């Protein structure tokens, strides 16, 4: 046996062992990350799912003009001022005639959401014919009652239930449930309402629209500017000290903490240019500043990856420098540019800190209808709800995170679709 053979043979075992060990590290790393991801998803989905359902109480409401305190032919103003709250209280008292003391009555009223009277008002406003008739109506329950019903607890054994409700309230709830007057339904309110102090009335719509508007502005500003900058730097700019400085600064900008961009937005766009506070337009501008370097850097990498032979071929045929870029280089670099853009936008979607500085941390009840309306965004909404004391906001928080994740997944899916569409081999 030659010397080489002996030596190689002796070292083989060690080499394969090293490879095996390395593979093991890799598998462990992947397993660990999948594990953590599952724990995260499991905990969020587990906590958040109940938020997509809410409990309703069925009541037979007698729409008595006298109780409402309005005339037979009420005007708009009269209707708005009508005592729907009193009517609902009356209905509840009628349902439970045995309740007499002041404190008990108050406890009884607490079973229903404060939003119930608005629901009733909307109903009557839409159809005046309902006045002076008795209608059967499903009204939203209070968050405590809702949580109790959703948890499927044994209402006949109040001691076993962990709740802030009193034993009496639990007994009433049992009575309602036995009479089939309680029902758990899909929580439409969560997707149609803005924020609210009452968990059962709080919805994600305002934050969702705010995020959509903000991202729209971010994309509209950062994508064209970043791609143009990347193309100029990569394809046209002379290599000198100035371009070096620009390059270094772009890289530095990518590493600037995001809250600094928020301070900049506050100082420049709100204090100097007097753009509206809490508005997606300012949020979008601030986030585009933050996203720009990410997209520029990845776009430059994508442009650099296009083989020089393609450029030479086009140039050799007499294409002008701009034609070389727009006809050949850009289409080939597009998938990479889109990937960078989506990474930047996903980062912008999840950003909270800079938005706190420009006032997008507000309590927004109205759904923003344009980019200048006051709005908040999904991550800020998550932050606000996580800070709220009511127990029902715990599930809302997780549900909002789920909506945020779905938003992200939809965005990524769109990017993958676009990338597949533009992807061409060379």
């Amino acid at each position, binding site marked *: 046996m030659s010397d080489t053979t002996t030596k190689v043979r002796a070292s083989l075992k060690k080499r394969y062992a090293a490879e095996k060990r390395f593979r093991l590290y890799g598998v462990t790393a992947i397993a660990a990350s999948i594990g953590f991801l599952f724990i995260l998803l499991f905990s969020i989905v587990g906590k958040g799912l109940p938020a997509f359902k809410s409990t309703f109480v069925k009541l037979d409401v007698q729409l008595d003009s006298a109780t409402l305190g309005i005339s037979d032919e009420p005007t708009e103003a009269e209707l708005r001022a009508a005592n729907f709250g009193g009517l609902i209280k009356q209905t509840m008292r009628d349902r439970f005639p045995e309740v007499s003391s002041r404190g008990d009555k108050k406890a009884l009223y607490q079973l229903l959401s404060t939003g119930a009277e608005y629901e009733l008002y909307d109903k009557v406003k839409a159809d005046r014919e309902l006045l002076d008739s008795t209608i059967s109506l499903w009204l939203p329950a209070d968050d405590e009652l809702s949580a109790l019903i959703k948890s499927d607890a044994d209402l006949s054994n109040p001691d076993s239930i962990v709740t802030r409700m009193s034993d009496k309230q639990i007994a009433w709830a049992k009575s309602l449930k036995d009479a089939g007057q309680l029902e758990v339904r899909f929580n439409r309110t969560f997707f149609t309402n803005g924020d609210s102090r009452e968990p059962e009335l709080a919805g994600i719509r305002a934050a969702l629209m705010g995020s959509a508007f903000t991202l729209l502005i971010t994309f509209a500003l950062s994508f064209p500017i970043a791609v143009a900058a990347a193309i100029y730097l990569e394809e046209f700019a002379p290599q000198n000290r100035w371009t070096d400085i620009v390059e270094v600064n772009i890289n530095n900008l990518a590493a600037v903490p995001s809250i600094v961009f928020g301070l900049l937005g506050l100082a420049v766009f709100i204090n100097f240019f007097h753009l509206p506070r809490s508005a997606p337009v300012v949020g979008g501008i601030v986030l585009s500043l933050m996203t720009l370097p990410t997209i520029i850097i990845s776009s430059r990498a994508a442009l650099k990856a296009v083989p020089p*032979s393609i450029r030479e071929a*086009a*140039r*050799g*045929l007499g*294409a002008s420098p701009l034609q070389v870029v727009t*006809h*050949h280089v850009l289409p080939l670099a597009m998938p990479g540019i889109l990937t960078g853009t989506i990474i930047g936008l996903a980062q912008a979607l999840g950003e909270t800190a800079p938005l706190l500085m420009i006032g997008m941390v507000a309590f927004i009840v109205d759904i923003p209808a344009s980019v200048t309306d006051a709005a908040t965004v999904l991550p800020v909404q998550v932050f606000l709800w996580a800070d709220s004391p009511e127990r029902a906001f715990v599930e809302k928080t997780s549900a909002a995170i789920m909506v945020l994740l779905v938003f992200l997944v939809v965005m990524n899916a769109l990017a993958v679709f676009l990338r597949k569409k533009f992807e061409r081999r060379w």
Partner: protein
Amino acid sequence: MNTAVATDTIDTSFIPRDPVKDSAQEAFHKLTETVGTPTVENAKMRSRDVNVFYGEKQAIFDVNLDIGNNEVVAMIGPSGCGKSTFLRCLNRMNDTIPSCRVTGDLSLDGEDLYGADLDPVLLRARVGMVFQKPNPFAKSIYDNVAYGPRIHGLSSNRAELDDIVVDSLRKAGLYDEVKDRLDAPGTSLSGGQQQRLCIARSIAVSPEVILMDEPCSALDPIATARIEELIDELRQNYAIAIVTHSMQQAARVSQRTAYFHLGKLVEVNATNDVFTNPQHELTENYITGRFG
């Protein structure tokens, strides 16, 4: 012409000491003027005293070489001898290298290549180029060939464009192989077909000169034979300059051969003469395989 070349700036120390090569080195240092006949009557492209610098480093020394109509000029020489650099001066492809500087006179039909009247874009439409590695665009076969005519507006309607594409593919000897799949991507073709597609693409612009930079170096002998046949046919209509590493190829396709050595043009003569009766010692060493 060809005076006082700074040969001492070239590092020739890598050439091993051996009697034959020592004499070659001596011959190289003595070389001040190109042997043979670098000029022709009614030249299509003319170059006089061309020097090319990459930053401080000089790559080409006082080259004079004409390319006549309807002839193929082969440029041979060892790696790094500057033949590709010289070729790329002929359609100003070196422009994009920031450190590259070209001095001397280069002209196409008497027009100065580096003059104000001749824009590089126009020049490259008149002087086509085929590269070492086939580089079709990531487009269909049709669009690859139609690209040049499209950007230069050579056709007024689709039918005319179709004619140009079919005609160019025919001239490149590719039409029969691809006529049923003009919509297929250019990159789906084999290496030899891709190179013929690139030739079709450059002749679609109806250039006056075609430059070829080692067009067959990435191809097998059969594909090479087809391209060589094609070059011979194209000679009827175009002036062609070809850089090649294969002396057999130079012998087969060219009418005149130029031998470059370390940035200098050593010898230019009719191909037959260069290979059967080289005038210069360096040329002889190279073609007999003793050198380079």
